[in-house]
């Protein structure tokens, strides 16, 4: 693997950039792997990377039906934060945040993690109560999050409209300064490059048709478009498609997949210094390094894999942005797109062992998947390598839906509910 640095860039510039090596080779499947990971998004590639780097397991394949990073990794609004309500969630996302901090150095690939701060707007008394609960809980968990008055929020984010006569006036905000954004594609590419350099096979455009189980019920491999691949362990990290993949192993999941939309504006000079989220009006916005306003929308009301999404939702989202930021009304929407998010009944992920021997799952992230990427990948690798969950992901079992110990982040999730 070529080490990337300003020096290597300079050296290659002088030779016309003709000597750069490929980020990852285009692998063809071998007959057998110790671990097959289904889904080459940030989570799956990251899990392969950590399996190789931290657990010495390098006979690993990551298989994807399309191109790597082409699912939700490449379709989200790149918000990273960890100010979740429940201890379990806060620890899970803060674990990810810790890994984000040094990810560029670790991968020798700049994922452009930008700690520009995430502001969550409160518009009424109920919001204030809910945010205060988050802030106090986060503080005692060692998670960065603090309360700002409306004027302080405006100082932190000048385009914000804090007029008291707005339909949804801003009465204050919770600020997590350590939160921010990262370059989504770079996360997938950096992990892919790091994993490939450690011997992991990345197999693209190879749909997994079924997970195959042996006579004793244990996983023995996967049937793919390129034939059967034997595997001692299979980890499914396929986001919106998890139900379909798991069904092939005979497991029915507490998941539903919804289309989630996002959009960007035309690029403008820097005006928006942070990330702003308002769960009450459903507005999520930041400005990319290219200058586009990146805006998250909600999910359509019905289960779908179509990635099309309707116009009414975009109308509502843009109206919400203009309500909170009336100066953007004359801006223009450049592009909108859709992803498929898999949602659990309590809006918290499932990350751990399955009742089938050798089968592991990482799913149900809803809109929270990108921010969790390094954490989820790290914990999935741990769980697969040791065949037991890490204490941080131990509460995120499938069994909680039987026993009733739900981790209900519905109130905290940035999704219409």
């Amino acid at each position, binding site marked *: 693997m070529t080490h990337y640095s300003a020096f290597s860039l300079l050296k290659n510039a002088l030779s016309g950039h003709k000597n750069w090596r490929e980020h990852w080779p285009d692998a063809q499947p071998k007959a057998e792997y110790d671990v097959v990971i289904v889904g080459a998004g940030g989570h799956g590639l990251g899990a392969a990377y950590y399996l190789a780097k931290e657990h010495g397991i390098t006979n690993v394949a990551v298989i994807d039906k399309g191109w790597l990073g082409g699912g939700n990794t490449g379709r989200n609004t790149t918000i990273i934060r960890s100010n979740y309500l429940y201890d379990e969630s806060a620890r899970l996302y803060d674990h990810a945040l810790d890994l984000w901090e040094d990810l560029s150095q670790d991968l020798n690939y700049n994922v452009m993690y930008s700690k520009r701060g995430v502001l969550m707007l409160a518009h009424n008394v109920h919001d204030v109560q809910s945010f205060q609960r988050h802030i106090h809980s986060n503080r005692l968990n060692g998670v960065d999050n603090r309360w700002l008055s409306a004027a302080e929020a405006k100082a932190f984010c000048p385009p914000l409209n804090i007029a008291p006569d707005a339909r949804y006036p801003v009465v204050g905000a919770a600020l997590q300064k350590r939160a921010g954004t990262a370059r989504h594609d770079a996360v997938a590419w950096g992990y892919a490059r790091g994993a490939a350099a450690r011997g992991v096979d990345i197999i693209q455009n190879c749909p997994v048709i079924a997970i195959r189980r042996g006579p004793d019920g244990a996983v023995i491999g996967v049937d793919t478009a390129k034939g059967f691949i034997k595997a001692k362990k299979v980890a499914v990290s396929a986001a919106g498609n998890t*139900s379909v993949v798991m069904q092939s192993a005979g497991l029915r999941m*507490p998941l539903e997949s919804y289309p989630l939309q996002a959009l960007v504006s035309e690029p403008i000079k820097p005006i928006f210094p942070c990330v702003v989220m308002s769960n009450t009006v459903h507005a999520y916005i930041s400005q990319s390094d290219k200058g586009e306003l990146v805006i998250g929308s909600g999910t359509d*009301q019905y289960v779908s894999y179509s990635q099309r999404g309707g116009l009414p939702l975009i109308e509502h989202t843009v109206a919400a942005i203009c309500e909170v930021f009336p100066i953007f009304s004359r801006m223009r929407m450049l592009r909108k797109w859709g992803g498929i998010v898999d949602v659990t009944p309590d809006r918290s992920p499932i990350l751990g062992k399955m009742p089938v021997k050798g089968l592991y799952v990482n799913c149900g992230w809803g809109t929270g998947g990108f921010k969790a990427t390094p954490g989820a990948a790290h914990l999935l690798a741990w769980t697969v390598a040791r065949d037991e969950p890490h204490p941080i992901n131990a509460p995120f079992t499938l069994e909680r839906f039987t026993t009733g110990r739900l981790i209900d982040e519905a109130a905290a999730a940035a999704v219409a509910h």
Partner: protein
Amino acid sequence: MLLIHCPYCDETLPEPEFAYAGEAHIARPADPMALSDEEWRDFLFIRSNPRGNHFERWRHVNGCGRFFNAVRDTVSDKFAMTYRAGEPRPNLDALKEAAE
């Protein structure tokens, strides 16, 4: 914005008149207390979430107010049919043959 046929109004109308109401044909057990925790979990939470034909419920909430069932392809979002609540789950193969 989908167009949805309400089997009670017998009209095809735009989505804002309707509310999605989750997977269909998950009947509430007659005696919930007789169920095991696993069976009760399946009723509460387990969903088929297929890529393809999905049996689902909608309510014509801004219309006749009725809940009804639909079969919709979750990949194309196209409705194969809608039918009244309480009617049995249609046999899709038969439906396809009839169309051909």
